[in-house]
């Protein structure tokens, strides 16, 4: 979507073993001027999209700054150490208050519940994209998303993805100015 719109896009990702139950992070950077490095410098993220609350907090503590804006899926996925009782997981209200204090704006939405209601928890990612688009922080709109989905997905999957996108958009009321 963004390449077509004339931006230099750099996405830094790690896969493989790093995905097996560990924390994974992708860095997405866009620029009108030049190719950026695939790693965001510490304290320099503009937006954090967290698919899990403690993970969003983990990322905030490395890349956060007073101007950062954060969108979080409130669905908790407990680390093994928390399940076994060796570690503790901060309460959601504690996490929420940290985000309130240390970010310019934050949204906590239950994308997983919305996805489960749509029939498949994997759709929570699309719910999050819909919510992100609605924040108007990035130059992405529903029409561009619709085009991209049509290009990348089997025809029978398009509708459910668009519904997930809209469900996410519906969860964001207040837009930052």
């Amino acid at each position, binding site marked *: 979507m963004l*390449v077509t719109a004339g931006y*230099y*896009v*750099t*996405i*830094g*990702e*790690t*896969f*493989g*073993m*790093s995905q*097996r*139950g*560990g*924390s994974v992070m992708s860095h997405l950077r866009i620029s009108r001027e*030049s*190719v*950026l*490095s*695939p*790693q*965001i*410098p*510490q*304290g320099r993220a503009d937006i954090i999209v967290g698919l899990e609350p*403690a*993970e969003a*907090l*983990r990322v*905030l*503590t490395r890349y*956060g*700054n*007073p101007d950062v804006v954060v969108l979080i899926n409130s*669905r908790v*996925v*407990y*680390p*093994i*150490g*928390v*399940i*076994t*009782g060796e*570690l*503790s*997981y*901060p309460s959601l209200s*504690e996490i929420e208050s*940290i985000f309130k*204090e*240390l970010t310019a704006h934050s949204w906590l939405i239950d994308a*997983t519940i919305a996805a*489960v209601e749509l029939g*498949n*928890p*994997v759709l929570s990612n699309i719910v999050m994209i819909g919510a992100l688009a609605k924040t108007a922080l990035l130059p992405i709109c529903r029409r561009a998303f619709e085009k991209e989905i049509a290009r990348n997905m089997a025809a029978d999957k398009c509708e459910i993805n668009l519904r997930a996108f809209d469900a996410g958009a519906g969860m964001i009321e207040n837009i930052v100015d």
Partner: protein
Amino acid sequence: MSKLLSPARTQVLFMGNEAIARGALEAGLNVAAGYPGTPSSEIIESLAHVARERKLYVEWSTNEKVALEVAAAASFAGLRSMCVMKQNGVNVASDFLLHLTASGTRGGLVLVTCEDPGALSSVNEGESRYFARMLEIPLLEPSSFQEAKDLTKWAFELSEAIGNVVMLRSVTRMSHASGNVICGKLPAKSRRAKFDYDGPVMDSRTGPMISTPVVAKHTLHQKKLKGVEVLFEKSPFNRYAGPAKPQLLIITSSVCFLYSQEAIKMLGLHKKVGILKLGCTWPLPPALLKKHLLKTDKILIVEEVLSFLEENVKVLAAGMLKQMGSKIFYGKIDGSLPSVGELNPDIVAAALGKIMKVKRKSLPADYTRKLQKAAALVPVREQTFCAGCPHRASFWNIHNAIALDGRKGFVCGDIGCYSMAALSPATGYHTMPTLHSMGSGTGLASGFAKLAAFGFDKPILTVCGDSTFYHAVIPALINAQHNRADITFIVLDNAGTAMTGFQPHPGLPTSALKETVPAVDIAAICAAIGAKVMISDPFDLETTSKILTSFLEDKGSVKVLILRQACALSPEKKGKKKFNVKVNDALCLGESCGCNRLCTRIFRCPALIWDRIKKKALVDEVICAGCGVCASICPQKAILKTEATV
């Protein structure tokens, strides 16, 4: 149409690995072979997708050495070929590579190595740049997505021009990152294969492809490498950007170029610091280096992981001492930059700031303090087997059999998702104390089993995955059988090369090109060497434990247990639950059960969580994959599984 075949002049978002694949296609690639390994796997995968349209032969070979041999055959027959692997794959291929670089090649042959500084998906951060120097072949390192494509294309021309292998090195942050690439033209014509070998022995175009007479061929080989220096002097892939007389010159390559650029920007040093970015890093072009070294007296070399570039620059500078005077070098050797782990813009900025005595604008102190306080609240997220992973059940069985045996047996580990049993010991129930390279578990087990005469009498077990079995285990297994090493060898057969994305392997009836091919049966191979072979489903705890216990008691030979159950993420299983699993609150005794929370404290499945309020076990249905194994471990039978209806 596949994105990889986008028309010329269109701009697309390519992953570094796709850019490399596209570069090879633009060069008129004919044959590609490789062995899966993060971060390299997408190159062969994306080429396999377009093989039909582009008339390519693409294969997943059994290991990297065989892959290089397959690619070399194509080169000998005048075709353009590529061989793809991760860093340690070059070690596997290196014996053939030594002889191949000595015999020379014909059609362009590019060896692509995708390396993993910081070991994000490896158990090593090995470097293969030193192979290029040791084996005297050109080394290219792309520093942007566009360059990943353009350098790959040029690598084929270079290889053909010098009649030898060209090594192209990428890293995780290039291979698995994505960025803008403007496509070039795809050639219309393919080549025909023809292998001449009747000519004189020293004629590399028509003679036999051999490395002898060694000294004469070595002389010719070095002469060709001298020619490469000349080409590198003028290469547009080596570029300087910055002031005419910088206070500091950064020499860098690969993704470190992007980090360096960003560090200069962060510190506002663009008027004081220049960057010489090298796309061609071996052999270094001396005149180009001299020209830029003369610009200043201070030089910082930014690279990953070891000081390869720095050493080579220093050797050149030492040879030009008279013309150039002495310089101050900063880099890995003086400790300005770490010589372990991967770099990032922050690390480079810190080194640069120290040398230039500039401070980076930092966050308000109070804010930073609050962030640090918040960081202390975030629980560590340890790597573990996925929900529904057959390996968890396999290690549960292995642990129980070892415990029952009572002689403190242990497992020699190997490379795959099951390496996690060593990386997060509690995940493997503390059974796996060794982990090295592919196939080494079986070799180590074979050695441990021969130590009985020295008073070492523990039962020795070893594991390997199905793909690993074909890659490097077979020689070690034959060694164990032939030398009568008493080992229990367990194949964790999850029906694919799971960790790298389900590439097919010789045990499956499908090839990289999705053709039907003969499957090579692991059980039949093991039986053929004379080992005792049993097959079981790791989810069937009762049967599997019985077999393992009998194997540990059975002394004097190689015993093979093949544990068959497809990976929970495999395309045929993903998103489909076999069982609905629930905890019956009325039956779960919680903390008062004598099991001491066996299910949530010891079994360690991410889907089986602890309800802090009820103080009982609970299944997180979103994460649960429905394998149903936990129902077999609960002493109270409080975990219930029912067949899921689709």
